[in-house]
């Protein structure tokens, strides 16, 4: 019995996370906690920072010039666009919550939030999104300083040929507003536009499956795969 495993505290777990030693299920559970646990994020940041010093041992190697050229093209103004989502104008206009600013992009999606943990403030609202009819388990956390809604899908497969669209149903609103189509990544960050930040508390988030490109009507057309209300942490 000399292989008895020591009790793992969060510091050790965070170290294993940074080393990529957790199996996929453990990793998903850990990342769901990261969204709402500032102390755990601090542990991860400390490990990432300490271990990054190991990279001092790595020999720098000049990459081929074509990488630089490709990045220069990528950063050129003509290609530097993210398609804005502009649904839900009429609903918000009706609610008097959005005026001329309705034309602003509603959401911008970023799929690399694992790298963001150094920057995100603690979440103030979280929503456990699920459904009795599906296997979907989604945890969403809102980080106010960055206006970032981190959406973490730990269970549930996107139906083939469909995309996930995220909706916000404000208290008292009679129709959902699209927060946009989510990339396929299990974890994405949605930047919440200024006009919607004040109505998040108590709002319901819902995920529906939609045809590629998102709902053609501006309202959910597919089935609701998971839903849950944003509540104080």
């Amino acid at each position: 019995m000399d292989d008895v495993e020591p009790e793992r505290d969060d510091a050790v777990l965070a170290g294993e996370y940074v080393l990529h030693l957790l199996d996929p299920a453990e990793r998903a559970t850990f990342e769901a906690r990261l969204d709402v646990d500032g102390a755990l994020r601090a542990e991860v940041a400390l490990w990432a920072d300490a271990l990054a010093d190991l990279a001092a041992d790595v020999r720098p190697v000049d990459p081929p010039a074509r990488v630089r050229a490709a990045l220069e093209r990528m950063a050129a103004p003509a290609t530097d666009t993210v398609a804005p989502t502009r649904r839900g104008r009429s609903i918000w206009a009706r609610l008097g919550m959005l005026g001329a600013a309705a034309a602003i992009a509603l959401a911008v999606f970023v799929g690399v939030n694992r790298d963001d943990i150094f920057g995100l403030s603690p979440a103030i609202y979280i929503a456990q999104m699920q459904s009795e009819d599906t296997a979907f388990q989604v945890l969403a956390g809102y980080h106010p300083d960055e206006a970032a809604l981190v959406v973490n899908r730990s269970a549930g497969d996107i139906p083939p040929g469909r995309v996930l669209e995220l909706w916000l149903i404000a208290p008292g609103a009679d129709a959902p507003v699209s927060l946009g189509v989510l990339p396929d990544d299990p974890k994405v960050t949605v930047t919440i536009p200024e006009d919607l930040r004040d109505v998040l508390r108590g709002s319901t988030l819902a995920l529906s499956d939609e045809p590629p490109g998102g709902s053609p009507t501006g309202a959910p057309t597919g089935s609701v795969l998971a839903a849950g209300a944003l509540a104080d942490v």
Partner: protein
Amino acid sequence: MNTPQEIERLILRAADGDRQAFMSLYDLTSAKLFGVCLRVLRDRAEAEDVLQDVFVKVWRNAGRYTANGFSPMTWLITIARNGAIDRLRARKAKAENLDAVAELPDHGPTPEAAAVAASDAAQVHRCLDELAADRAGAVKGAYLDGMTYQELADTYAVPLNTMRTWLRRSLQKLKDCLSQ
């Protein structure tokens, strides 16, 4: 000036859409990050691909970088390492074909490397030195080479559970040492 302050300044300017700053950031850091990707992937074409993705992410997410006392190289190295390990695991999931992997020359530290990761590299090394050589080697194997528990167990010829125990105890000791 290849200092953390300079790198941080370039990230912040890239966040404002400054392409020149972004390319300067690339010129200063790409060799290091390419080295990190190569070390994990041991395949130039894949490492090149990942490096490009890494800088696309940096360009799109520079605004998410916040100065917080951590070295900006930590942020960049974390993005590069995450990208490389994700690619490595995806490759392994596809086909276990380690025999075809080309060996890279040795990875001894160089003055350039020390200059880039300039912070206090000493601390983690000092703490690793307090561990038995094989235990320290396992931590490095996981970090630098992206090895899994199973691969580490195979490398050090111990049962999987023993490797888990080793590594978790090593992390606990490292943590104690690093927080001193």
